[in-house]
């Protein structure tokens, strides 16, 4: 059973998003996603300053089994990519909702965040995917 924290929002494509106090949104991949991918060996996080659109592929996570795109949950500007993942991609396996965050985005419109799946809806989506 994978961990789905109640205070986060999600995408069906298994990204999570957290609204920070400064109005930025932190993005990573869910515990379910990291389990499905297996041991991560490489992460390509976006450069700060890059403009991204909601649903745009803006990072790549590569495991021993597969490589997957990470999609932005909102439109906005990337304010930081997690540089620690360059040398320690396994942070995503160890702490998908903590040190394994991938990028921070300043959203153009916070309403896009509010429209993301809540934990309950994401759990339902996971259940539908596995059954």
């Amino acid at each position, binding site marked *: 059973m994978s961990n789905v924290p109640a205070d986060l929002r999600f995408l069906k494509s298994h990204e999570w998003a957290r609204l920070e106090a400064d109005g930025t949104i932190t993005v990573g991949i869910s515990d379910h996603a990291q389990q499905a991918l297996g041991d991560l060996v*490489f992460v*390509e996080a976006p*450069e700060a300053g890059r403009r991204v659109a909601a649903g745009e592929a803006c990072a790549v996570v*590569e495991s021993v089994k*597969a*490589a997957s*795109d990470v999609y932005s949950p909102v439109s906005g500007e990337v304010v930081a990519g997690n540089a620690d993942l360059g040398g320690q991609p396994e942070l995503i396996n160890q702490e998908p909702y903590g040190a394994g965050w991938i990028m921070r985005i300043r959203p153009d419109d916070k309403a896009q965040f509010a429209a993301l799946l809540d934990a309950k809806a994401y759990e339902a989506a996971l259940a539908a995917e596995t059954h």
Partner: protein
Amino acid sequence: MPFIPHTADDIRDMLAAIGAPDTEALFDEIPARLRARALDGIPPALSEMEIGRLMTERAAVDGQRLNFIGAGAYEHHVPAAVWAIVTRGEFYSAYTPYQAEASQGTLQLLYEFQSMMASLTGMAASNASLYDGATALAEAALMAVRAHRKSKSQRILVPKAVNPSYRNVLQAVAGGQKLAFETLPYDPAGGTTTLASLEKYRGQDITALVIQQPNFFGMLEDVDALTDWAHEAGMLVIAVVNPASLAVLKPPGEWGATGADIVCGEGQPLGVPLSSGGPYFGFMTTRLEFVRQMPGRIVGRTVDLDGKPGFTLTLQAREQHIRRSKATSNICTNQGLLVTAATIYLSLLGPHGLAQVAATCMQRAAELVAALGKVPGVRVAFAGPRFHEAVLLLDRPVHGVLEALAARGIVGGCDLTRDYPSLGHPLLVCATETRTVQDIDTYARALADVMQSAAAA
């Protein structure tokens, strides 16, 4: 014999199983207007006997002429052992082995090839080869765009002194992907790319600078200054090199303060015969930090469950069977058989042997330039250090002179008139270690004779 394992019965059974009327129906997803019809220009298939006869006749037309043409493909001595070993059944495949458990020999050979290319070019990582030198440069340009994430322009500076065929392929392969190529002029005195021609790009967003060493005219570029300038201006450096020259020239990994970023080139000089233009192979090496942006197969060394060393394809998440349309390249492959030849060639020669080949090439080319430059009506185009080629300027159209030389059994060089019209009547000549002092004398006498008789006519 068709090299397709399925019999007519197999095909009928498989089609019946999925309910398709015929093989054509499997392609109905492709719109009719995009489908290739029967290829009218292709003649009917020939039998092995017929094709053997045809090719023997074609080869006889080439004859056994004394060759002074280079321009990207070079006549070198290939020890007989190279192709005797390459054509052994164990090696005789052009394909990359996915099944590591059944292909340790081939994988080890590719790994040795990569180690040799990394060592020759002074870079950390190599792929298992590409189609040829020109497509390797096109792949390097696309790779530079991926690797240089701060640059958004997709603009690449390409000196006019880069092989014109390579520049055409660059445009054909990468132009359609919105890369823009800006041509840099060469210095008319030295035939090289100058820093002055780069200054106007300072402060602009440029992804990479291409540097060919030796350049298409055979001249040696000031690679240290060019590399440092490009890096200071925030560009990556793509080196295009002749691998045979690297035994005596500084490897791209040592150019300037920090070295080139991507190195590519044509591998043909390493044990691959001219063969009327191919097949050849391209190579590519890079810094470790860019290895995930490199196209093509990469073989890695690892250990198995028992701790024994072994070899396998690695970093496959870059490739099309995993990443599909987002792969680093969908139009590249490894040239397994030719790489096998190159690896055996390099093993047999060793660093010392390769240096001897390169040094003899330089020596013969210098003798050739001295001898031909004395012929009335001929002068040497550029002054400065060169590898094994040089541009001569004739006082009359090159084509007629080459025809007259051909009638005397000499392939006199490559006519550059079409690609470099501003040079007047330019002829690119080459001498490798296969040309003797007598050969050079024969050419010089024949050229003098041709120039004199044509002048008299």
